[in-house]
């Protein structure tokens, strides 16, 4: 049963990943990418790592891919033309593909040494959320915090790159607005007829 499910989901992952590249419409590409992420989460569930599966959906499908879709929908580029141009780079693609294939072959050749049966998604009877947390906040605390700092730097960089100071823009000050009373806003005058103020 699990084997059938694995075969089905793995096939969907690979097929949808192929369609990400093959789709002519960029929005369709992103939609296929979302299906790829989603099915990969299904693979995580199959090996019992439900925490990772949910994180994959929350982070990649729920946030990252939404922004991808957001950006791609806004673009107005003739992607068919762009794709024809990319055909010139096929030797590079071939090279990268060959390197990947070589690495995969290396893994395949040594796979006898790597045991695949001892995998335990929830070691020591903890749920795998607890297991991940216990390792992440003790043994790998430094790496975890470094990853956080790197993300922070990236975020600050993005803000600095896009921040523009526009001096003549009126900004709403909510505190000022709601703090305004009738007495501050206007005063009553009683001008005599024919005189004005």
């Amino acid at each position, binding site marked *: 049963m699990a084997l059938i499910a694995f075969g089905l989901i793995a096939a969907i992952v690979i097929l949808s990943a192929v369609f990400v590249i093959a789709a002519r419409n960029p929005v369709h590409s992103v939609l296929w990418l979302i299906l790829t992420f989603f099915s990969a989460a299904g693979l995580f569930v199959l090996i019992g790592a439900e*925490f990772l599966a*949910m994180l994959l959906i*929350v982070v990649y499908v*729920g*946030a990252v891919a939404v*922004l991808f*879709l*957001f950006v791609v929908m*806004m673009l107005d580029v003739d992607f068919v033309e762009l794709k024809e141009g990319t055909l010139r780079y096929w030797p590079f693609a071939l090279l990268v593909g060959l390197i990947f294939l070589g690495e995969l072959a290396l893994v395949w050749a040594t796979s006898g040494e790597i045991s695949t049966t001892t995998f335990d998604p929830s070691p020591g009877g903890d749920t795998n*959320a607890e297991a991940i947390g216990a390792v992440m906040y003790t043994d790998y605390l430094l790496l975890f915090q470094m990853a956080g700092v790197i993300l922070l730097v990236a975020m600050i960089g993005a803000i600095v790159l896009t921040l523009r100071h526009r001096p003549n823009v009126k900004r709403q000050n909510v505190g000022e607005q709601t703090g305004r009373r009738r007495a501050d806003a206007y005063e009553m005058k009683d001008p005599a007829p024919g005189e004005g103020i």
Partner: protein
Amino acid sequence: MSNAIESLGSLWGPLLVLGQIGLFTLVLLISIAFLLLLDRKVWAGVMMRKGPNVVGPFGLLQSFADFGKFLLKEIVIPAGANKFVFIFAPILTCTLAFAAWAAIPVAPGLEGGTSWVISDLNVGILYLFAISSLGVYGIIMGGWASNSKYPFLGALRSAAQMVSYEVSIGFVIITVILMVGSMNLSDIVNNQTGGLQNWHAFSFQNFPLVIVMFPMFVIFFISALAETNRPPFDLPEAESELVAGYQVEYGSTPYLLFMLGEYLNIVLMCAMMTILFLGGWHGPIALGPEIANALPPLLLSLSGLFWFMLKILFLFFLFAMVKAIVPRYRYDQLMRLGWKIFLPTSLAAVLVVAGYVTYFGVQA
């Protein structure tokens, strides 16, 4: 007969799950029909109108009449629309809204420690969060596939809005997870036994935390309004600006699916608030163990179901009142509220609760 059941054997489990799914779907659909009517009646009541009152006694059958109308109308797909995505978007919205209910525990089980739920996930709350974060796709895809300006603008608005408010919802959920120490929804509910004072929204047994947790409940409620595109945050479908936003080009059955998904999501958010903050199926007054043991377990389960539904109904009533009373936010105000007020507040709350749990421990 018993032979037939035995020969089913391994099929029994999947069949049972299928039956549960069918039951959930049926109950949800019928409840939605009447909740929709309640929504319109409350809205009408605030405006001193009568609301729908023609179909059936007090208009009780109005939703069913609407349902028939939507089914019988012709499906119009605009020229230049992306057909597959156009049809797929409402189906996705509706499917996801139903899928989330698989993890919602609605009542205590007949044996101790179990609950009435289709799938008691270890990461139940994360599952709900993940599914509700996928809800934005239906709207974006619908808006984009319509190949029309207003839907597209509505889709863009909703994408930014839903991603923004998910952040504060996530932090509020973390405060509750910290208090419970588990992401299992049944554990979260069972952490709130013993009456009103132990519900997470009040949590008097961890006294100083009530100062944090009640505001978190309010933040979750308001973020839930934004997450489900309800007024006052219904900018994706603001009728005065965008006609009907992302669903301008939709009619008949696809529109019905969008609306169904939207209301299912609202009820789901009510259920999440009930589970996270209002004690789930526990009543406001705790029964002593003698009384609880003397009662038949089925009665306890049914009374749990009753409380759960009553709380959802109350929260839905609040949703309807907010829709009737509060004027729509402007878009920059919406973003300001989400990023400049809710995000820092909920982040600070996570720190406070984490510190409290670490140094004082939680009295369950």
